[in-house]
């Protein structure tokens, strides 16, 4: 069964990215790309988007495009998306890590609700602003990317697999105007355990879902051997799923090894075998 589980991380700034690269063992892709992209062998990718919600949105679209080119779509595999970065809050302690369960975009009033299936995290709601927040008026985490990130990611995945994790860098007592940028990597590094857990939890969720959606190698072999119309392609996929659901993968293997004149003949044979 072909399975590809991916966790895609979007980070605004290199200072935020640096500790995460080290924590997750990510290395820069050698090829030239529109964005700096880092990956490891375990299915994690990280892109540095630049600041602001539009930049985050475009970075998600870029990474999703890369996945599509690699055939992720066809495999029916879901990816997880994770936005990590620093943020401000009126009273949370500097260094605190929060999993976000509600995102409000201040400019439009639009709201997004990341899924709540992950447990063991302190949670908070968040407001994405277009200018640095200095008043901390509401009981919410303030930052500048999450709404754009979420808006884009929901086109490629479902809410349970789209998460935002923010580390508090400033509050009323430690005002944003006095942040020492050099301290940011250490703040993020201090949340290493939670970041690792978060990535692991997302992979856990993905495995459960993607294993149900995975297709046998026979699907891909047959797809490349015959010319299928769009409808026939959908039929082939569903037939392969049904063979799997009925515990008949061995029979599928036998059928796939036989000769057929056309996709139509193959599909008829597969249908007969499932009667």
């Amino acid at each position, binding site marked *: 069964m072909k399975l590809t589980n991916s966790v895609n991380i979007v980070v605004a700034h290199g200072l935020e990215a640096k500790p995460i690269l080290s924590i997750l063992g990510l290395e820069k892709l050698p090829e030239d790309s529109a964005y700096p992209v880092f990956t490891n062998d375990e299915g994690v990718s990280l892109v540095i988007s630049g600041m602001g919600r539009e930049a985050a949105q475009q970075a998600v679209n870029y990474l999703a495009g890369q996945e599509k080119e690699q055939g992720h779509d066809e495999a029916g595999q879901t990816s997880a998306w994770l936005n990590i970065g620093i943020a401000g809050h009126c009273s949370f302690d500097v260094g605190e890590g929060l999993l976000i369960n509600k995102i409000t975009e201040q400019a439009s009033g639009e709201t997004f609700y990341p899924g709540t299936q992950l*447990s063991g995290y302190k949670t908070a709601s968040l407001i994405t602003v277009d200018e640095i927040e200095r008043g901390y008026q509401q009981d919410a985490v303030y930052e500048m990317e999450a709404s754009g990130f979420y808006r884009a990611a929901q086109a490629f995945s479902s*809410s349970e*697999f789209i998460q935002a994790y923010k580390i508090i860098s400033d509050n009323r007592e430690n005002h944003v105007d006095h942040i020492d940028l050099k301290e940011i990597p250490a703040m993020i590094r201090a949340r290493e355990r939670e970041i690792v857990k978060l990535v692991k939890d997302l992979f856990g969720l993905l495995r459960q879902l993607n294993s149900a959606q995975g297709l046998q190698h026979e699907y891909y072999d047959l797809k490349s051997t015959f010319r299928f119309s769009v409808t026939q392609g959908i039929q082939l996929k569903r037939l392969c*799923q*049904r063979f*799997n659901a009925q515990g008949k993968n061995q029979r599928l293997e036998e059928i796939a090894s036989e000769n057929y004149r056309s996709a139509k003949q193959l599909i008829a044979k597969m249908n007969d075998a499932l009667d």
Partner: protein
Amino acid sequence: MFSAIYIEEEVAQSERVKNILASYDAVPHIYCQRYGEVFNRKSQSFRAQKAAPALILARKHGNFVLPSPEGYGFDNNPSYYFSHMLNCIYDCRYCFLQGMYRSANYVLFVNYEDFERSLLDVVKKNDGPSVFYSGYDCDSLALEPVSRFGEYFLPFFAANPRAVLEVRTKSTQIRSFLESEPLDNCVIAMSFSPQSASEKWENRVPSIAKRIEALCKLQQAGWKIALRFEPIISANDTVTSYTELFRQIFSKLDGDQIHSASTGLFRMPVDFHKNIVKQYPDEELFSRKTEVKDGMLALKVVDEESQLEKIERSLKEFISVDQYYHCA
């Protein structure tokens, strides 16, 4: 029990909501404008949510009481259904709810008073008796400790004896009933599948034995109880497994005192089936051949009608013809 609780701002200050939130203060409380923002949005995985659903506390606006589908139910009087809740805490793989809603989160409509007003309007509109079914979009009692649905609505039906209430459930949360005087116009209808089907498809549901035990207590306390055998899903041993189930049930319950027993075949709208297949492409039940019968999707079974006849014959060894009906 809940991964989070969403609360519509409009209902946040109601006593009912405050009591629920107080019982679950360790769970994230997330405020929203309308439950649809969370429940109806695109890009959700029903399957992923089912592993850890959230509760959504909301206000229902309109359509509190609706006419029940044709062929549904045990009575020829005007019949209706009302849903104080959407979705079910159980995870029965054959359930049409998997294909009906985008979300597996539970929605609890907390404005019971509005439901009650609508029920009264409908009762007054009908000259004679009317029947009200609860449990179409949810399990009526599974969340009783949170919803207190039975606790709230039983007094209404006590005060309106012409209105008959059917409470459809697989739950053993019957305390509200045991702590109340039994009502002549209230029927608790428990759903059952045979043991093999239950093990295969009824996740998180109380065991058959526990459900029978709950019915025994209700029957002994003077409540009317009913049995619902649906959906019937064909297997190699369908008839014998149902016969065994009937023996198990009627060895404990007084068959003469059963309000009614019904059967229903596996049917669902075609679109619901398509949605469920997308969520559960690996589920054997939904990989079976299907056909459309009377506009509804059915499993393609050669001898479905004759199996049903045999099951009915077996059931009628324990109850009278008058107690039985087949739900279309």
